[in-house]
């Protein structure tokens, strides 16, 4: 069981910001889908640091990302 970041894509799509993707320490993990105009997380690669949450919530006050507990199947 471990934490991963999850993006509320609908909410995220209301902004055009991409800021979280610019601060994720991991490559090819927190991506931006141009068609949806929203960020998304490649969950198996997410290490759960929550930096994106800091950027989205603490700095930008947009609260589109949450940390969630997932289970490997």
């Amino acid at each position: 069981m471990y934490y991963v970041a999850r993006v509320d894509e609908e909410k995220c799509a209301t902004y055009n910001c991409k800021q979280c993707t610019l601060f994720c320490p991991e490559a090819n993990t927190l991506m931006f889908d141009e068609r949806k105009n929203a960020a998304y997380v490649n969950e198996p690669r997410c290490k759960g640091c929550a930096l994106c949450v800091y950027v989205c919530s603490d700095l930008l006050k947009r609260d589109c990302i949450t940390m969630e507990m997932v289970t490997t199947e």
Partner: protein
Amino acid sequence: MGLRYVQPAPGFKQYLPKDYVDLIDFGPFGKEVDASQIGQFKEILEEHPMCAGCWMAYFVRVFYASLPNPEDTIVLGTAGCARLALSQAAVPFIYGNYGDTNAVASGLTRALNLRFPDKQKDVIAIAGDGGLMDIGFSMTMHSWFRKEKFTTIMVDNEVYGNTGGQESGMSPKGVQLKMAPKGKKFDKLPATELAKLAGCVYVVKIAPTNIKRLSKVIKRAILAARHFGPTFIHAYTSCNIEYSIPTEEVLRDAREREKKDFGFEEYMTDEVKAFFEEIEKKKKEVKA
């Protein structure tokens, strides 16, 4: 030419892993990518075992996204955290011995110049504070004195992170770490000042808080090294483990340190300045 070696043989592509195919189709090879587009193209850096929230891992990510010529770039690293990520990229990486990056890079750069006098091959040594300013100090300094044409990047986490948190020459004075049980007795080494004195033509001190600026100085350091001599970037890349920074706070920490003692500094010789001005001018002309 370098681009050729990442291309699979005809008919072979369908058998390759998705990550590799993505790299060919959506990677930065042969294109001019902007690091601030990360998240929208396939990066050459792959998964790596660096800690969650590591600011050094973030630096390495931006670094690889900023290479002006990734298909003709060779990266050198040494013992320490950074190489755990540095080695996981679709760019040739050399892991030598302890603190030897700048000596190996000296030989490598000279030899590449002998073999490919008409081609630009970028050589970049990236090591930590221990590798460059402690164990590899003389090799770092002398590569600069000799005016070797490659870029040196110090990812400074102010500690030996990979060996379990010992004091380094770049740890701040007073900080209590392993092997400094009563606190560090002397100041952080003045790395950028040493670089200037030793003859680096382009020297930057930076905390990675602004991707555009960070990417720009990485590109500049590499371009200046091609033509003029050694270049040096001193980047603050905190160790959230040894300095007990909650992972979600590492950006906040970087911004604080930037205000306190890691304010952006960019030094360049007049020659290098004129070179960049010329490039900017040409860019504007193309746009216009």
